[in-house]
């Protein structure tokens, strides 16, 4: 029986690796303690994964990622077995589904951007009303007014021509004057844009050098000399940034100030790289990351592994990006992101989540810029701006706020899939049936939804994707079969694969790989949890109650096991790459 299970698991592993990239399917993520303890679901299409997360003050936001990152987080680190129901559909159907998710993503991102702009309006009007300096503007801190006549910047100025730059500065100054004199509080975004264009023109005319605080200073072990291929790539990149500055000076984009400042800074960084024969990259996280990162509760070896992984990633990126015939901006930005991770000792979460499909972080170090006073009744303007912000918050809440049964990660996933098609008849032709589980009691629960997908939609096959623990157990049992190995691997404290973590709750026996013995194991875990709670209470003055909490959670997650239900599976902080 056990051998059969192992054979099935090996087959599943092979299938998971061979999963076709051009297919459409629904992914079921099994439960585990912590967030999404009731499970989760996603859509996979052409190797991209779409799912909804409760991410911004109870808003349900679309997250997109490559399959490999999704698999790493859910199946490996969170140790949840997955199942993928692949649908028998045409490539056109897959593309239409992806477009529907692209539409949702764009709508959400633009509404969030609108809210950010309105928040800025309020901050700016508050500053004007209190006669305080206005908030920093992104990109303005990349270059230093205190470092004029930088030789590379002077060369760039000569390349563009001082006359056209003076014209650009004069036009921006006129726009700033007009906008502040008019005192229209709904045109503050235009004011900020004009201030940035003015600053970019000033920086070009004054040949300002890079602000050293905008550069990601790499540690010695990640600061290798440039190779010939990298030098060639950087020459090409520097020239492309010079062209970009020239094009942006001529552009009619009202918001080109930031892009201009960034292109100048990148050109200077590239020229400095070539001069010093060391890669100089801008810090992509500075304006996106909090000033001090929340400390992580991970072991020292995890921190060390992360640092090593980040340095290795930078080496890989240098080979991939700088060796290209043409260095593209989006690709070069990846290098900046990795340098920012290396700078933060491997903390890739420092500026929030990154994805293969967007969510990029561009270097944007901010600095406050001088602005003429804003005319008009600032009290009334501020009241109006606050009202507009509140209305925008309400719009976001109405469209995407999380509601347990009517708008959760399942219902919005299913509706967005269905929205790709014109109506019931078209849905039936495309998928076999609607994905929305409205016809099913508790259809909003992930596994009920997945059962319905299997029953109603045109599923060609279901592929199990094992968790990290399942995969490792298969390896360990194959290498060392026997009752002793099984006994050793069945408890959290003797397992060679798992290291107990307090966030997993206190437990002794794994119950996800047994069924008939599960209630008995549950009893053991329940009593272990009670004992751990007692120990936690004694440790309360020293640990702030984290052990007591883990003990109580251990008791709670043992209760479903008494009724044959497993939720808890353990999790991992770091796993060696394959």
């Amino acid at each position, binding site marked *: 029986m056990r051998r059969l299970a192992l054979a099935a698991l090996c087959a599943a592993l092979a299938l998971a690796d061979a999963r076709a990239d051009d297919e459409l399917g629904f992914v079921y993520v099994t439960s585990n303690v912590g967030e999404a303890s009731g499970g989760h679901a996603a859509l996979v299409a052409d*190797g*991209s994964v779409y799912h909804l997360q*409760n991410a911004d003050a109870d808003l349900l936001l679309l997250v997109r990622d490559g399959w490999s990152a999704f698999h790493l987080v859910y199946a490996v680190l969170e140790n949840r077995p997955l199942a993928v129901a692949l649908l028998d559909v045409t490539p056109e159907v897959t593309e239409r589904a992806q477009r529907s998710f692209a539409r949702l993503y764009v709508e959400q991102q633009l509404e969030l951007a609108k809210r950010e702009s309105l928040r800025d309006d309020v901050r700016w009007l508050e500053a004007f009303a209190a006669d305080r300096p206005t908030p920093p503007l992104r990109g303005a801190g990349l270059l230093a007014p205190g470092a004029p006549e930088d030789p590379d910047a002077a060369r760039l100025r000569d390349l563009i021509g001082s006359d056209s730059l003076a014209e650009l500065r004069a036009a921006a100054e006129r726009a700033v004057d007009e906008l502040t004199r008019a005192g229209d509080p709904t045109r503050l975004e235009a004011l900020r844009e004009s201030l940035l264009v003015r600053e970019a023109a000033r920086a070009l005319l004054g040949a300002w050098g890079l602000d050293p605080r905008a550069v990601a200073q790499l540690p010695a072990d990640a600061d290798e000399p440039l190779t010939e291929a990298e030098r060639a790539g950087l020459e090409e990149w520097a020239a492309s940034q010079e062209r970009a500055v020239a094009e942006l000076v001529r552009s009619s984009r009202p918001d080109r100030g930031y892009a201009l400042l960034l292109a100048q800074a990148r050109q200077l960084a590239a020229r400095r790289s070539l001069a010093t024969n060391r890669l100089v990259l801008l810090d992509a996280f500075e304006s996106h990351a909090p000033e001090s990162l929340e400390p992580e509760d991970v072991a020292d070896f995890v921190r060390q592994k992360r640092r090593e992984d980040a340095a290795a990633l930078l080496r*890989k990126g240098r080979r991939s990006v700088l060796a290209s015939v043409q260095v593209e901006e989006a690709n070069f930005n990846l290098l900046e992101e990795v340098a920012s991770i290396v700078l933060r000792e491997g*903390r890739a979460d420092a500026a929030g989540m990154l994805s293969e*499909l967007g969510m990029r972080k561009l270097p944007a170090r901010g600095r406050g810029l001088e602005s003429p006073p804003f005319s008009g009744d600032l009290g009334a303007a501020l009241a109006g701006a606050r009202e507009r912000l509140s209305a925008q918050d309400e719009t976001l809440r109405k469209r995407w706020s999380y509601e*347990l049964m009517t708008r959760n990660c399942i219902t919005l996933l299913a509706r967005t899939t269905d929205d790709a098609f014109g109506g019931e008849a078209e849905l039936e032709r495309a998928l076999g049936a609607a994905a929305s589980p409205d016809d099913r009691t508790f259809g909003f629960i992930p596994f009920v939804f997945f059962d319905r997908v299997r029953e109603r939609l045109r599923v060609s096959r279901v592929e199990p994707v094992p968790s990290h623990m399942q995969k490792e157990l298969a390896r360990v049992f194959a290498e060392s079969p026997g009752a002793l190995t099984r006994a050793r691997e069945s408890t959290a404290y003797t397992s060679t694969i798992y290291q107990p973590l307090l966030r997993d709750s206190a437990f002794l026996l794994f119950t996800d790989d047994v069924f008939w013995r599960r209630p008995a194991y549950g009893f053991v875990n329940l009593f272990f949890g009670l004992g751990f709670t007692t120990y936690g209470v004694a440790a309360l003055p020293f640990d702030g109650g984290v052990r007591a909490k883990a003990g109580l959670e251990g008791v709670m997650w043992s209760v479903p096991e008494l009724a044959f239900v497993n939720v808890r599976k353990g999790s991992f902080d770091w796993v060696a790459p394959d």
Partner: protein
Amino acid sequence: MNPRRTLLAAALIAVLPLFGCKIITAIIELPSDISAGSSKSISGSFDAISTSSGSGPEEPTPNQTSYRRDLRQFAAVFALSQGGTREEFLRGVARIAEDHGVSHWEAEPITPRAIGEGLRDANLSEAEMEAFVNDVGRDKPAAQLALEGWRNPGS
């Protein structure tokens, strides 16, 4: 539902009040998860660049495909909505481009092409598209790419 599934559903329903909204939605709030997932994403992007450059210019990276798709949807939604200004349109394009690591989006051939495709999705007539192209400047490569996107929007 089989009895095991029913038990799990019952267990979930029973503990719903304990967890409120958290039980069936994912919030990857563990820094270690975000960190590892983000690093993996970048690694995947580097792999895609290597694959793309190895197989000729016709093979876009997932980021490029996604940029094109997003921009196409944005152009279609914007064209169908009432009262948007030119500045708002350009800001929207910039926001989407920056989300994909592009600040100088005018230099990316995908940009005008995707906009043209989106305008086709919004059912812009040939006359309206001609007016758009004239507005951009008919002789500019961007205008021609937009027209090409409108004429051949793909499926």
